[in-house]
């Protein structure tokens, strides 16, 4: 997030949610948004193919066709430009390439966009006006925006919208991705990315490589590595020989499960370090038992870049080992010497190579976590980014054209399938499916389908149905609802016995981010006879 969570409750006067079911997937943030709307009268705009809980209190709800995000955002910008609601001062002083973007956006009139997205032109106008005219407008998004083959385009469009209206660098504004996992921000910060060392220092830049070669005392590779999705494809093709999976479950979380399974089977050696025998661990040649979060010390960085302590509460099960110790022990055996006495020792090294973490210490975050960038011990941390200046200098407008999703409905597969999370489960379910109360409350998967669609297929609420795509099919309960329109169905990806990712495709990924298009594929729903 460019801004902090609390601003969504206290400072934002208009909030635009696109592709985030906030009350289910980031409940506390959702509650804060709702409080701001109810108690302070903040305006709320919700764009989502499902009429999510927060849509009920929105000033405008736009139920758009999955995958038409760019068109919708261009439509809003078209209104803002044509009605003169843009922030000319901000554009002039802080951005570049506005004219290029403007030229593209010109043809996306509300009427044109209405035809693409299914959102009435009047609602597009209303949403654009509310956001542009707000004193402090905040955009929040999650995987609903990013998990498309145009994910990067979608994010660029959101940034265009924020820059066009000057909603950046002030309290209650910003471009705010709500990150789905406890430490996904930290994993990125720490350089668990194929293109960057810790703190986003590109591996391809000679100066960075030299810095880390010096810090670590070893020659480093100048080539960008493989993204997760590319690595699976390389394994599938037999070019990747060994894979080490640390606390992940690609068998359930990655697109096109059959493809992943074949890829993992192709490996010469698969190491899985986990706390449970996950579906991926079952494929392993070697399993290393790590420990759970209640059993370890360290830090997590949350979605607002706040670095917070994780504390060991209990002694782990006999013969499991701290994850950091496993990694250190193995690295030493590989002939590279590591010698840390504790997670804090490791953190002290992180501070020396990651400038944004340099000012953060365990002592400083003993009580309250700090937002990076925090370059020195006196620095108070940075809850709001881009005040007065962007990290690259001038904010760059990207002209973005709308592209259709890769797989559109046809006669054989007439519905659009979107996948996502439930409030009661988490990711691949390795933890929540083993949590008694959560699994008792929601023990099975479901496909959410519009009443009329179900009626046409002779399907009743709660009935077992077959959901199929070109990749495969699963059987699960039908949940009749009116939060989706008649052409869209939705299911969860937490349930291995009815795994949504048997259905999703891995054929076309976002060309920059390598993100799969989990939010759109063509599907067919059938009664089981």
């Amino acid at each position: 997030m460019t801004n902090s969570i609390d601003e969504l409750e206290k400072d934002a006067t208009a909030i635009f949610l696109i592709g985030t079911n906030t009350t289910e997937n980031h409940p506390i943030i959702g509650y804060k948004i709702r409080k701001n709307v109810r108690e302070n009268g903040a305006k709320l705009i919700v764009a989502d193919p499902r009429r999510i809980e927060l849509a009920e209190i929105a000033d405008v709800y736009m139920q758009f066709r999955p995958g038409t995000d760019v068109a919708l955002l261009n439509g809003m910008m078209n209104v803002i430009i044509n009605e003169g609601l843009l922030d000319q001062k901000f554009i002039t002083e802080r951005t570049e390439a506005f004219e290029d973007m403007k030229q593209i956006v010109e043809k996306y009139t509300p009427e044109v966009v209405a035809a693409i997205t299914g959102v009435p032109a009047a609602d597009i106008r209303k949403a654009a006006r509310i956001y542009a005219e707000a004193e402090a407008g905040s955009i929040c998004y999650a995987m609903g925006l990013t998990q498309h083959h145009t994910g990067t385009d979608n994010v660029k469009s959101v940034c265009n919208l924020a820059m066009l209206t000057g909603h950046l660098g002030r309290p209650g504004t910003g471009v705010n991705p709500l990150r789905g996992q406890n430490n996904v921000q930290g994993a990125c910060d720490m350089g668990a990315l194929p293109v960057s060392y810790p703190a986003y220092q590109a591996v391809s830049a000679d100066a960075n490589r030299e810095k880390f070669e010096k810090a670590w005392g070893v020659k480093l590779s100048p080539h960008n590595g493989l993204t997760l999705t590319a690595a699976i494809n390389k394994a599938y093709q037999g070019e990747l020989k060994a894979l080490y999976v640390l606390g992940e479950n690609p068998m359930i979380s990655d697109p096109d499960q059959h493809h992943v399974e074949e890829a993992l089977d192709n490996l010469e050696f698969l190491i899985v370090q986990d706390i449970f025998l996950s579906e991926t661990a079952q494929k392993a040649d070697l399993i290393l038992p790590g420990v759970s979060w209640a059993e370890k010390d360290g830090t997590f960085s949350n979605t607002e870049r706040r670095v917070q302590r994780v504390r060991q509460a209990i002694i782990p099960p006999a013969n499991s080992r701290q994850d950091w110790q496993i990694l250190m022990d193995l690295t030493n055996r590989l002939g590279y010497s590591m010698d840390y006495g504790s997670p804090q020792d490791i953190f002290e090294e992180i501070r020396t190579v990651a400038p944004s973490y340099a000012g953060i210490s365990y002592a400083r975050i003993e009580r309250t976590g700090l937002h990076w960038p925090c370059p020195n011990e006196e620095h108070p941390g940075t809850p709001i980014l881009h005040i007065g200046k962007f990290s690259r200098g001038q904010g760059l407008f990207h002209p973005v054209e709308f592209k259709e999703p890769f797989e559109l409905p046809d006669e054989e597969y007439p519905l659009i399938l979107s996948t996502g999370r439930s409030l009661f489960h988490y990711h691949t379910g390795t933890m929540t499916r083993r949590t008694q109360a959560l699994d008792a409350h929601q023990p099975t998967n479901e496909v959410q389908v519009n009443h009329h669609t179900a009626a046409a297929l002779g399907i009743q609420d709660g009935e077992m149905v077959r959901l199929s795509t070109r990749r495969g099919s699963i059987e699960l309960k039908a949940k009749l609802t009116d939060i989706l329109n008649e052409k869209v169905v939705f299911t969860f990806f937490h349930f291995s016995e009815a795994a949504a990712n048997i259905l999703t495709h891995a054929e076309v990924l976002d060309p920059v981010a390598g993100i799969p298009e989990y939010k759109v594929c063509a599907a067919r729903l059938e009664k089981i006879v």
Partner: protein
Amino acid sequence: MLNLTINGQAIQVPRGTMLLDACQMAGADVPTFCYDPQLHLAGSCRMCVVEVQGRHNLQASCVTPCVDNMVVDTESPATVEARKIILELLLARHNINCHVCEKTGECKLQDYCYRYGVDDSRFAGEKGHFTSEDPNPFIERDYDKCIMCTRCVRACDEITGAQAISVKDRGHHAKISTVFDGKLADSTCVFCGQCIMVCPVGALSSKVSMNKGRAYQCEKVLTTCTYCGTGCTLELNVKDNQVVGVSSNRDPVYSPVNQGALCVKGRFGWDFIHSEDRLTTPLIKENGQFRAASWEEALDLAASKLKSIKTEYGPDSIALFSSARVTNEENYLAQKMMRAAIGTNNVDHCARL
């Protein structure tokens, strides 16, 4: 600024300060049930009454704005008598089974009865029986212990915004209820347990923690939630090296993101830690079957395999999926291992998924 005298002590407070806050600033321990600093004031329990010189009635301090030159006694005989009567009235419909109650030791009713020596109720008579079976797996509702402070109603409305519960009926029959007095699961309840967090007595408690240990038997370890990216602070309650519950730290200094509020997963989703399915030893697959191995053997095997694959196919034939589940320190080591020891940038994690 306003000048007040509280229990003989002179104190200055800004205009607009409530009397309860002023009393607390003056060091007075004024008992409260319905008052909660995070919620709108209800002024309904009257437990916080104090005697203000020159006023006929005792004043409910939580809803009384300070006035210049107030002279206040927080433990005058009349005040104490009023509080005792309130406690007796509450006991009249309270199911006193402290010996098996989850909240024993952190129950305000118990604490105040002890403080004021109230052991029985002169008003005991016909008792209602409010307990409603609620088959949800998270929240135990025992309204025979409810004192009608409505903190749960306000927390549900003001913190979570679910508006799942409210007060039904009047007087002796009043109770907390969902719409049509049904099950929580059929209401707008999202099982966040904010109601449990604010309940001052044993009316609301966690089914998941039941009979596993009382507050005073548990060590509370402050940590950060393991689920979504919000980064909520929570306390793991530990007894005999077992996590037996999760509680809230509502101080914004310690809980800057959530001020104690949690969701259903944060509050009730922790018992996987002690699942029988936990991996407890390294496993090596031989002929399609896993067998237990020592750490020495397992790590030697990992190292020799990775080295031989690196020698034969080059470092880029090896990749690592690190994890958004593990700590910064572990992610740092994982990528350092791949880059420094293996010699490849093939490191990624599930940010894309």
